[in-house]
Protein backbone atom coordinates (compact mmCIF):
# COMPACT_ATOMS: atom_id res chain seq x y z
CA UNK A 1 0.00 0.00 0.00
CA UNK A 2 2.94 2.32 0.69
CA UNK A 3 4.10 1.85 -2.90
CA UNK A 4 0.67 2.74 -4.23
CA UNK A 5 0.39 5.84 -2.05
CA UNK A 6 3.85 6.88 -3.12
CA UNK A 7 2.95 6.46 -6.79
CA UNK A 8 -0.21 8.52 -6.20
CA UNK A 9 1.82 11.28 -4.54
CA UNK A 10 4.33 11.32 -7.40
CA UNK A 11 1.49 11.53 -9.93
CA UNK A 12 -0.15 14.33 -7.93
CA UNK A 13 3.07 16.36 -7.77
CA UNK A 14 3.79 15.69 -11.44
CA UNK A 15 0.29 16.89 -12.33
CA UNK A 16 0.53 20.06 -10.23
CA UNK A 17 3.83 20.76 -12.01
CA UNK A 18 2.11 20.36 -15.38
CA UNK A 19 -0.62 22.86 -14.45
CA UNK A 20 1.69 25.39 -12.78
CA UNK A 21 4.10 25.29 -15.71
CA UNK A 22 1.38 25.76 -18.33
CA UNK A 23 2.07 22.42 -20.04
CA UNK A 24 -1.45 21.21 -19.28
CA UNK A 25 -2.76 23.97 -21.56
CA UNK A 26 -2.44 22.64 -25.13
CA UNK A 27 -2.74 26.11 -26.62
CA UNK A 28 0.32 27.25 -24.66
CA UNK A 29 2.21 24.16 -25.83
CA UNK A 30 1.32 24.97 -29.43
CA UNK A 31 2.33 28.61 -28.90
CA UNK A 32 5.77 27.16 -28.16
CA UNK A 33 5.86 24.72 -31.08
CA UNK A 34 4.44 27.29 -33.53
CA UNK A 35 7.61 29.30 -34.09
CA UNK A 36 5.92 31.20 -36.92
CA UNK A 37 3.30 32.72 -34.58
CA UNK A 38 3.43 34.77 -31.39
CA UNK A 39 6.15 32.53 -29.96
CA UNK A 40 6.01 31.56 -26.28
CA UNK A 41 9.37 30.17 -25.06
CA UNK A 42 7.96 29.11 -21.65
CA UNK A 43 8.24 25.40 -22.40
CA UNK A 44 12.01 25.65 -22.65
CA UNK A 45 11.96 26.64 -18.99
CA UNK A 46 9.61 23.76 -18.07
CA UNK A 47 12.01 21.26 -19.62
CA UNK A 48 15.01 23.16 -18.22
CA UNK A 49 13.62 23.16 -14.68
CA UNK A 50 12.69 19.47 -14.82
CA UNK A 51 15.98 18.33 -16.34
CA UNK A 52 17.99 20.46 -13.89
CA UNK A 53 16.56 18.24 -11.14
CA UNK A 54 16.85 14.89 -12.92
CA UNK A 55 20.35 15.71 -14.17
CA UNK A 56 21.62 15.87 -10.60
CA UNK A 57 19.70 12.97 -9.08
CA UNK A 58 18.88 10.41 -11.78
CA UNK A 59 22.24 8.81 -12.46
CA UNK A 60 23.10 8.17 -8.78
CA UNK A 61 19.62 6.73 -8.19
CA UNK A 62 19.76 4.49 -11.26
CA UNK A 63 23.16 3.18 -10.11
CA UNK A 64 21.90 2.65 -6.57
CA UNK A 65 18.85 0.73 -7.79
CA UNK A 66 20.81 -1.09 -10.50
CA UNK A 67 18.30 -0.12 -13.17
CA UNK A 68 19.48 -0.63 -16.75
CA UNK A 69 17.68 1.27 -19.48
CA UNK A 70 17.83 0.91 -23.23
CA UNK A 71 20.59 2.61 -25.19
CA UNK A 72 20.11 1.61 -28.82
CA UNK A 73 19.22 4.13 -31.49
CA UNK A 74 17.19 2.15 -34.01
CA UNK A 75 14.48 2.59 -36.62
CA UNK A 76 11.51 2.22 -34.22
CA UNK A 77 12.96 4.98 -32.00
CA UNK A 78 13.33 7.37 -34.94
CA UNK A 79 9.98 6.55 -36.55
CA UNK A 80 8.07 6.50 -33.26
CA UNK A 81 9.50 9.84 -32.10
CA UNK A 82 8.68 11.42 -35.48
CA UNK A 83 5.08 10.16 -35.38
CA UNK A 84 4.64 11.23 -31.77
CA UNK A 85 5.87 14.73 -32.65
CA UNK A 86 3.32 15.03 -35.45
CA UNK A 87 0.48 14.13 -33.06
CA UNK A 88 1.87 16.53 -30.45
CA UNK A 89 2.06 19.33 -33.02
CA UNK A 90 -1.57 18.80 -34.05
CA UNK A 91 -3.18 18.74 -30.63
CA UNK A 92 -0.70 20.24 -28.19
CA UNK A 93 -1.14 17.26 -25.90
CA UNK A 94 1.52 14.76 -24.91
CA UNK A 95 0.48 11.86 -22.63
CA UNK A 96 0.94 13.46 -19.17
CA UNK A 97 -0.87 16.73 -19.91
CA UNK A 98 -3.64 14.83 -21.73
CA UNK A 99 -4.29 12.63 -18.69
CA UNK A 100 -4.36 15.50 -16.19
CA UNK A 101 -6.55 17.47 -18.64
CA UNK A 102 -9.21 14.76 -18.25
CA UNK A 103 -10.15 16.86 -15.20
CA UNK A 104 -11.43 19.52 -17.63
CA UNK A 105 -14.24 17.05 -18.44
CA UNK A 106 -14.01 18.36 -22.01
CA UNK A 107 -14.91 16.26 -25.05
CA UNK A 108 -11.55 17.22 -26.54
CA UNK A 109 -9.49 15.68 -23.72
CA UNK A 110 -11.70 12.59 -23.51
CA UNK A 111 -11.49 11.94 -27.25
CA UNK A 112 -7.73 12.54 -27.30
CA UNK A 113 -7.05 10.11 -24.42
CA UNK A 114 -9.34 7.43 -25.85
CA UNK A 115 -7.60 7.72 -29.23
CA UNK A 116 -4.19 7.68 -27.53
CA UNK A 117 -5.03 4.39 -25.82
CA UNK A 118 -6.21 2.89 -29.12
CA UNK A 119 -3.05 4.11 -30.86
CA UNK A 120 -0.89 2.50 -28.16
CA UNK A 121 -2.72 -0.81 -28.48
CA UNK A 122 -2.42 -0.63 -32.25
CA UNK A 123 1.37 -0.25 -31.92
CA UNK A 124 1.42 -3.61 -30.16
CA UNK A 125 -0.55 -5.49 -32.81
CA UNK A 126 1.27 -3.83 -35.71
CA UNK A 127 2.30 -6.69 -38.02
CA UNK A 128 6.02 -5.95 -38.10
CA UNK A 129 8.90 -6.69 -35.82
CA UNK A 130 8.59 -3.06 -34.65
CA UNK A 131 6.57 -3.78 -31.62
CA UNK A 132 6.94 -7.52 -31.09
CA UNK A 133 10.71 -7.43 -30.89
CA UNK A 134 10.67 -4.75 -28.23
CA UNK A 135 7.48 -5.71 -26.48
CA UNK A 136 9.18 -6.63 -23.22
CA UNK A 137 11.42 -3.65 -22.81
CA UNK A 138 8.91 -1.09 -24.04
CA UNK A 139 6.90 -1.58 -20.89
CA UNK A 140 9.80 0.03 -19.00
CA UNK A 141 8.78 3.45 -20.11
Amino acid sequence: MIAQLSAFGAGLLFGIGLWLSGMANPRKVLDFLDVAGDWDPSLLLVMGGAVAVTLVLFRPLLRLKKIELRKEIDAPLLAGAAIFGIGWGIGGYCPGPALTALSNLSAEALVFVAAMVVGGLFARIWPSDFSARHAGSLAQR
Partner: protein
Amino acid sequence: MHNFTPVASLLGGVLIGLASVWLLAANGRIAGVSGILHGLIWPMSASPPGDRLWRAFFIGGLVVAGFAWHAFSGAAPSREGFGLGWAAAAGLLVGFGTRVGGGCTSGHGVCGLGRLSLRSLVAVAIFMATGVVTAVVVRHVIGVAS
Protein backbone atom coordinates in the same frame (compact mmCIF):
# COMPACT_ATOMS: atom_id res chain seq x y z
CA MET B 1 6.10 36.75 -26.58
CA HIS B 2 3.35 38.32 -24.49
CA ASN B 3 2.36 34.94 -23.03
CA PHE B 4 5.82 34.18 -21.64
CA THR B 5 5.56 32.85 -18.04
CA PRO B 6 9.18 32.22 -17.03
CA VAL B 7 8.77 31.91 -13.25
CA ALA B 8 5.69 29.67 -13.17
CA SER B 9 7.05 27.50 -15.98
CA LEU B 10 10.45 27.07 -14.34
CA LEU B 11 8.88 26.24 -10.96
CA GLY B 12 6.39 23.86 -12.57
CA GLY B 13 9.28 22.19 -14.38
CA VAL B 14 11.15 21.74 -11.10
CA LEU B 15 8.05 20.07 -9.57
CA ILE B 16 7.87 17.71 -12.57
CA GLY B 17 11.56 16.86 -12.09
CA LEU B 18 11.07 16.29 -8.36
CA ALA B 19 8.05 14.04 -9.01
CA SER B 20 10.16 11.97 -11.43
CA VAL B 21 12.95 11.65 -8.87
CA TRP B 22 10.37 10.70 -6.23
CA LEU B 23 8.96 7.88 -8.38
CA LEU B 24 12.46 6.57 -9.11
CA ALA B 25 13.67 6.83 -5.51
CA ALA B 26 10.57 5.47 -3.78
CA ASN B 27 9.12 3.10 -6.39
CA GLY B 28 12.14 2.30 -8.55
CA ARG B 29 10.17 3.37 -11.61
CA ILE B 30 10.80 5.71 -14.53
CA ALA B 31 8.20 8.46 -14.77
CA GLY B 32 7.44 7.94 -18.44
CA VAL B 33 3.73 8.65 -18.65
CA SER B 34 3.08 6.92 -22.00
CA GLY B 35 4.68 3.70 -20.73
CA ILE B 36 2.94 3.85 -17.34
CA LEU B 37 -0.43 4.20 -19.08
CA HIS B 38 0.28 1.50 -21.62
CA GLY B 39 1.40 -1.00 -18.95
CA LEU B 40 -1.93 -0.41 -17.24
CA ILE B 41 -4.02 -0.85 -20.38
CA TRP B 42 -2.26 -3.54 -22.43
CA PRO B 43 -4.38 -6.65 -21.81
CA MET B 44 -1.62 -9.18 -22.48
CA SER B 45 0.83 -7.64 -20.05
CA ALA B 46 2.61 -10.52 -18.33
CA SER B 47 3.42 -8.49 -15.25
CA PRO B 48 1.92 -9.30 -11.82
CA PRO B 49 -1.34 -7.59 -10.72
CA GLY B 50 0.54 -5.33 -8.29
CA ASP B 51 2.32 -3.83 -11.28
CA ARG B 52 -0.96 -2.50 -12.59
CA LEU B 53 -1.87 -1.02 -9.23
CA TRP B 54 0.98 1.47 -8.87
CA ARG B 55 0.36 2.59 -12.46
CA ALA B 56 -3.31 3.21 -11.72
CA PHE B 57 -2.39 5.22 -8.62
CA PHE B 58 0.15 7.35 -10.47
CA ILE B 59 -2.36 8.17 -13.20
CA GLY B 60 -5.04 8.75 -10.55
CA GLY B 61 -2.68 11.29 -8.96
CA LEU B 62 -2.26 13.04 -12.31
CA VAL B 63 -6.02 13.35 -12.79
CA VAL B 64 -6.71 14.39 -9.18
CA ALA B 65 -4.03 17.09 -9.56
CA GLY B 66 -6.15 18.59 -12.34
CA PHE B 67 -9.29 18.69 -10.21
CA ALA B 68 -7.32 20.18 -7.30
CA TRP B 69 -5.83 22.82 -9.60
CA HIS B 70 -9.24 23.83 -10.95
CA ALA B 71 -10.59 24.08 -7.39
CA PHE B 72 -7.95 26.71 -6.57
CA SER B 73 -7.44 28.58 -9.81
CA GLY B 74 -10.66 28.04 -11.74
CA ALA B 75 -11.52 26.02 -14.81
CA ALA B 76 -9.04 25.69 -17.65
CA PRO B 77 -9.75 27.83 -20.72
CA SER B 78 -11.64 25.87 -23.37
CA ARG B 79 -10.42 25.76 -26.94
CA GLU B 80 -12.85 27.04 -29.54
CA GLY B 81 -12.61 25.91 -33.14
CA PHE B 82 -10.48 22.81 -32.60
CA GLY B 83 -12.54 19.91 -33.95
CA LEU B 84 -12.81 16.52 -32.29
CA GLY B 85 -11.59 14.88 -35.50
CA TRP B 86 -8.26 16.63 -35.01
CA ALA B 87 -8.20 15.57 -31.36
CA ALA B 88 -8.80 11.94 -32.37
CA ALA B 89 -6.10 12.01 -35.07
CA ALA B 90 -3.63 13.62 -32.67
CA GLY B 91 -4.39 11.04 -29.97
CA LEU B 92 -3.92 8.10 -32.34
CA LEU B 93 -0.55 9.42 -33.51
CA VAL B 94 0.65 10.21 -29.97
CA GLY B 95 -0.42 6.78 -28.66
CA PHE B 96 1.12 4.91 -31.58
CA GLY B 97 4.29 6.98 -31.81
CA THR B 98 5.13 6.91 -28.12
CA ARG B 99 4.78 3.12 -27.97
CA VAL B 100 6.87 2.49 -31.08
CA GLY B 101 9.46 5.06 -29.99
CA GLY B 102 9.46 3.87 -26.38
CA GLY B 103 8.74 7.17 -24.67
CA CYS B 104 7.30 10.66 -24.69
CA THR B 105 8.11 14.08 -23.32
CA SER B 106 8.46 12.69 -19.81
CA GLY B 107 10.24 9.37 -20.44
CA HIS B 108 12.65 10.56 -23.12
CA GLY B 109 12.56 14.24 -22.15
CA VAL B 110 12.59 14.69 -18.37
CA CYS B 111 14.01 11.28 -17.42
CA GLY B 112 16.09 10.40 -20.50
CA LEU B 113 17.86 13.75 -20.80
CA GLY B 114 18.46 13.69 -17.04
CA ARG B 115 20.41 10.45 -17.33
CA LEU B 116 22.33 11.83 -20.33
CA SER B 117 20.96 9.15 -22.66
CA LEU B 118 21.92 9.69 -26.29
CA ARG B 119 18.95 7.53 -27.30
CA SER B 120 16.59 9.92 -25.55
CA LEU B 121 18.37 13.02 -26.84
CA VAL B 122 17.86 11.77 -30.40
CA ALA B 123 14.17 11.07 -29.68
CA VAL B 124 13.66 14.54 -28.16
CA ALA B 125 15.36 16.25 -31.12
CA ILE B 126 13.14 14.35 -33.55
CA PHE B 127 9.80 14.86 -31.81
CA MET B 128 10.60 18.54 -31.22
CA ALA B 129 11.42 18.96 -34.92
CA THR B 130 8.31 17.17 -36.24
CA GLY B 131 6.22 18.92 -33.56
CA VAL B 132 7.39 22.37 -34.67
CA VAL B 133 6.86 21.64 -38.37
CA THR B 134 3.42 20.13 -37.72
CA ALA B 135 2.24 22.99 -35.47
CA VAL B 136 3.32 25.58 -38.06
CA VAL B 137 1.65 23.69 -40.92
CA VAL B 138 -1.57 22.96 -39.03
CA ARG B 139 -1.96 26.56 -37.85
CA HIS B 140 -0.68 28.57 -40.79
CA VAL B 141 -1.04 26.36 -43.87
CA ILE B 142 -4.18 24.37 -43.05
CA GLY B 143 -5.51 27.18 -40.87
CA VAL B 144 -6.80 25.18 -37.91
CA ALA B 145 -7.46 27.14 -34.71
CA SER B 146 -5.39 24.69 -32.65
